[in-house]
């Protein structure tokens, strides 16, 4: 019999699957764009792409975990993006003084309060959303799509009703306005901040997923929830926690996006949701790292294409998704067996 007994002491170690190729894609994309644009413009576009990518990643990371772990297609995710942005706007209204102060600390204190409030509110609404809308439709994809889309529409209409259809301004604090100049290239300060926040979220998620027992349970649950239960863990509690965290991340992404655009409106969640879903699919449903790379790819490409061939920019995301899926039909880092 040719089955590997695997117990000879000298047997070679099976190679850990170091699949680093997808990690190189954003770098390759950035380098590929370099010959076509002036260097200073390239620099500005690249930073813009990175910042946008990080924000999309923050919004999409929660969705990918929710899908991977719970097998739930949550079309309501966009609602949390918009709600987060509105909560931040509300919190910042009375804190206008801090935002306009010349002190970076007062500015940051105001921003931090807005972020904490936005994440707390979206987490709590996420809890209610999961208990009321998702629990009855676990395992039923079609109903999930209908009911979460319904939830999304209701949330959007509530925002219209409460705040009106118009754009509401959301100004950046004093110290984050304007740009740095590096050579000829102008780099908006806020974009740098967005990149840093995105990186912090990404690294924190990786640490939690890889270094804590909760993280191990989430990764195991993404692959085989039934076996996690057979080992004695209540996966439903994990579901609730991940759903709340995912919603809070959407809220954070909404705040970041609102500040980036310096305005919020009720339909922003729905508009971003398409992009977020593309990123989640490109990444391989359920993979945080894949989602990170997918977000960077989508955003970088949008910026380069928007500059080079503006007419193509409407379909560049879709083309990218098709190209990735032709290469890896289940996304960059497929993790679920579904």
């Amino acid at each position, binding site marked *: 019999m040719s089955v590997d007994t695997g117990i000879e002491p000298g*047997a070679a170690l099976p190679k*850990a699957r170091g699949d680093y190729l997808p990690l190189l894609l954003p770098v390759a994309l950035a380098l590929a764009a370099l010959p076509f644009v002036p260097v200073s413009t390239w620099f500005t576009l690249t930073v813009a792409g990175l910042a946008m990518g990080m924000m999309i990643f923050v919004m999409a990371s929660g969705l990918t975990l929710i899908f991977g772990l719970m097998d739930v297609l949550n079309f309501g995710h966009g609602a949390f993006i918009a709600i987060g942005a509105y909560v931040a706007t509300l919190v910042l209204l009375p804190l206008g003084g801090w935002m306009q102060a010349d002190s970076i600390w007062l500015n940051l204190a105001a921003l931090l309060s807005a972020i904490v409030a936005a994440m707390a509110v979206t987490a709590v609404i996420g809890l209610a959303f999961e208990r009321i809308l998702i629990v009855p439709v676990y395992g039923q994809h079609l109903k999930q799509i209908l009911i979460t889309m319904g939830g999304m529409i209701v949330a959007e209409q509530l925002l219209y009703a409460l705040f009106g259809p118009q754009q509401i301004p959301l100004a950046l604090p004093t110290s984050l306005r304007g740009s740095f100049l590096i050579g000829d290239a102008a780099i908006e300060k806020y974009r740098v901040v967005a990149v840093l926040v995105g990186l912090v979220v990404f690294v924190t998620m990786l640490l939690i997923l890889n270094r804590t027992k909760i993280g191990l349970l989430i990764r195991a649950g993404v692959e085989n929830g*039934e076996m996690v239960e057979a080992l004695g863990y209540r*996966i439903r509690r994990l579901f609730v926690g991940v759903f709340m965290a995912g919603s809070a991340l959407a809220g954070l992404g909404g705040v970041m996006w609102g500040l980036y655009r310096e305005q919020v409106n009720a339909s922003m969640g729905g508009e971003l949701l398409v992009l977020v879903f593309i990123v989640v699919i490109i990444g391989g449903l359920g993979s945080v790292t894949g989602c990170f790379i997918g977000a960077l790819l989508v955003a970088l490409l949008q910026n380069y294409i928007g500059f080079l061939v503006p007419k193509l920019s409407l379909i560049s995301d879709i083309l990218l998704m098709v190209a990735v899926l032709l290469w890896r039909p289940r996304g960059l880092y497929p993790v679920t067996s579904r």
Partner: protein
Amino acid sequence: MSELLTLSAVETHIGRYHILHGVDLAVPEGATTMLLGRNGAGKTTALRTIMGLWRASAGEIRFGGSRIEARPTPDIARAGIGYVPETMAVFSDLTVKENLVLAAREGAMDESRLGWIFGFFPPLKTFWLSRAGTLSGGQKQMLSFARAIIEPRRLLLIDEPTKGLAPAIIGALIDCLAEVKRRGATILLVEQNFRVAQEIGDSVSVMDDGRIVHTSAMAELARDGALQHRLLGLSLGAHQ
């Protein structure tokens, strides 16, 4: 001998299919009970029903005296049942170590117990930090076993552990089972390999078409070739 696990008239439906048609099964404490039967007889379904992974639609399952058929799977596991599924179900994205960290739910892994497990399954030590997905089939089975015994459990449910494995690995699994049993565990073991069954089984129940059709001491079935043939469709020569 008292019974640790009993199934009485258990029925299971999967979707619209009626799979178990009233299973009566007793697993005596401290012994190894073999569950045999042809392909599709319902052995896996029976184990999954005990674990609560399928819901019994009728009947009663008692473990250590209390009813468990309506309890959620994690509670059933925490009552003291370790499960080695037919698919092994190792978490392939996690390392060998991480798989065992999750299986040891009482906290840190007991070093001496780990050493004891490495004694049966040296590859687990060699590949301690490798992703379980990169292991060979036999090594995955070792890991699946190790997960079930990393902490002492009162009952082990093991589904066709030797399927498709090389004799050397089957030997290691049997040694491990014998030792686990010597330490007092109760085992319910589904096994197609009659030689293995004969070697480690104390008593045996045979399933066919969702029912238990025979129960006896293992030795009794092992002696009776005609009975084996009738129950399992074994031709003696092929399994010696």
